[in-house]
């Protein structure tokens, strides 16, 4: 059950490279699993998209992929962010979102670094943002204002995602309304008294 043939051939190639530690009689999944752990350049070779595919094969491979990525979580995230920034392609943004969500779920200690990096990424779409907020990412009022001050395009999407998923934050309601560009919400907000953080 392989996600695609190209991935299989790339993996086979790496397994051959790693043949000294791999017995040919092993099942394919086990070969990949060993290769993942013993060959550090594997991630670079099959790429984030390949790893994401691998992790969908079965529970054991998913754990292996997580182990490998959590060896240098921020390093992997930075390289995928660089790809997303330079190519501006939707699939690379999705790869970033997948990796960031994985890190948020499996390595909570990285949450602050992950959040900081994603907040500086321009034009994230609502779908990706919601995926990450669902994985535990939170944006505070101070972080939001700092990102807006740095002119990060489309930074309001995080507030929108938090609002869609009904997450409680310290962001004032009127600011949420500004970020969601929701004129109706703004009208109703203007009739209630606002409390502002000092």
């Amino acid at each position: 059950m392989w996600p695609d043939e190209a991935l299989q051939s790339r993996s086979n190639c790496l397994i051959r490279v790693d043949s000294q530690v791999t017995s040919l009689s092993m099942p394919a999944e086990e070969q990949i699993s060993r290769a993942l752990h013993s060959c550090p350049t594997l991630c670079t070779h099959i790429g984030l998209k390949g790893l994401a595919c691998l992790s969908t094969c079965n529970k054991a491979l998913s754990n292996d992929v997580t182990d490998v990525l959590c060896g240098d979580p921020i390093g992997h995230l930075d390289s995928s962010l660089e790809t997303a920034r330079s190519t501006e392609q939707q699939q690379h943004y999705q790869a970033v979102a997948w990796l960031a969500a994985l890190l948020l779920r499996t390595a909570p200690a990285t949450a602050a670094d992950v959040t900081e990096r994603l907040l500086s990424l321009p034009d994230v779409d609502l779908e990706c943002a919601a995926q990450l907020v669902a994985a535990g990412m939170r944006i505070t009022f101070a972080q939001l204002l700092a990102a807006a001050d740095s002119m990060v395009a489309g930074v309001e999407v995080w507030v929108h995602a938090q609002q869609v998923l009904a997450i409680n934050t310290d962001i004032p309601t009127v600011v949420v309304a500004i970020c969601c560009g929701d004129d109706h919400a703004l009208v109703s907000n203007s009739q209630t008294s606002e409390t502002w953080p000092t």
Partner: protein
Amino acid sequence: VNSSACVWIVLLHDLQDLNALSAETAGTVLQLAMNCSKPSTAAAAAYSIADATAAAARSLPAILQPAVARRLLLTAATRQHTEAVQQMVALPLLQQHLDAATLEEMLRQLLWDHHSTKILCQLPVAAELSTDSATELLLAAYQEYAYKAGRALCKLDATRQLSSEQIEDLLQLLMTQPADSDGCRTWVFWQAFFRLPGAKQLSSSAVVRLLRKAMSLRRSDVSEHLCKVPAAAEVSSADVASVLREAFATPADDEFDLFLKDVTQLPAFNQLIRAEVAQLLYAAAQHYSTAHETSDNAGLTSLCDLAAAEELSSEQVLLPLQLVVHRSDKCTEALCQLPAVEQLSSEAVAKLLQASIAGNRKRSV
């Protein structure tokens, strides 16, 4: 005023009484709105500043510190929120904080919108832009095909202060840049450009250098204006002859005919002497003997119309005739109207007729 602006009025007014939000935070919230992707959100924030100004909100000067004001303006421009930009620059409170560096960056972001560009170029601070900034903006506008914005940039003091040498350098550079193939669109740019004092002061030698470049790059949109600058009237007939000789040595195409029309309008063209006309006629005949039938052959026909052409010897007419007789009716006809044709030997005429028949031409000598 749209509904979201109401919130901003409330926000800014409330500040005076409640003082619940620090001026710094209020500034960054405005910045947040200006940075939003939705133009209406940014516009609403801009209108709220205008409303708060009109209501003389006491807190406003504290919120709109110089650095905050500049950041708001630059952010609105970077996010391409033209309505917010136009609204904000009209407010003296914000306008007073705008400096030349911010204005230049704003212009760079908004060249695609000629209306905004025009408004920004009319601000008092626009007078502080340097000639280097003006040159770079003009180049950027041209590269972005923002010709109407380029026209607005030509009204800047700094652009008007460009020397004729700077204009020549800029023209040399602009001609090498890709341009809209629709000459009507570049025309608005060149019209404003050639009205600049520096362009009017181009020397005749600069005109010749630029004409050569325009010819080699087939930029008839530029040559049209170049041939109308004051110093174009002072270009010598020797220079015109040399430009034309170079031109005839290049392959024929549509742009070429337009370029030639401009050059033949120069006063010095009518002063070409007999020897020059003889040489050019031969070069023109060589050129048109390879041209498409659709070419209007204007280069050769205008040469035949010159007073000096009447003085040509029969040999000087025979050579070009031999080149075109089997190729171009228009050229043949023009050459046959010259007085020297009547002195051709019967032998030469017979040969020409043969060639004409071989080329299946309707016109004969």
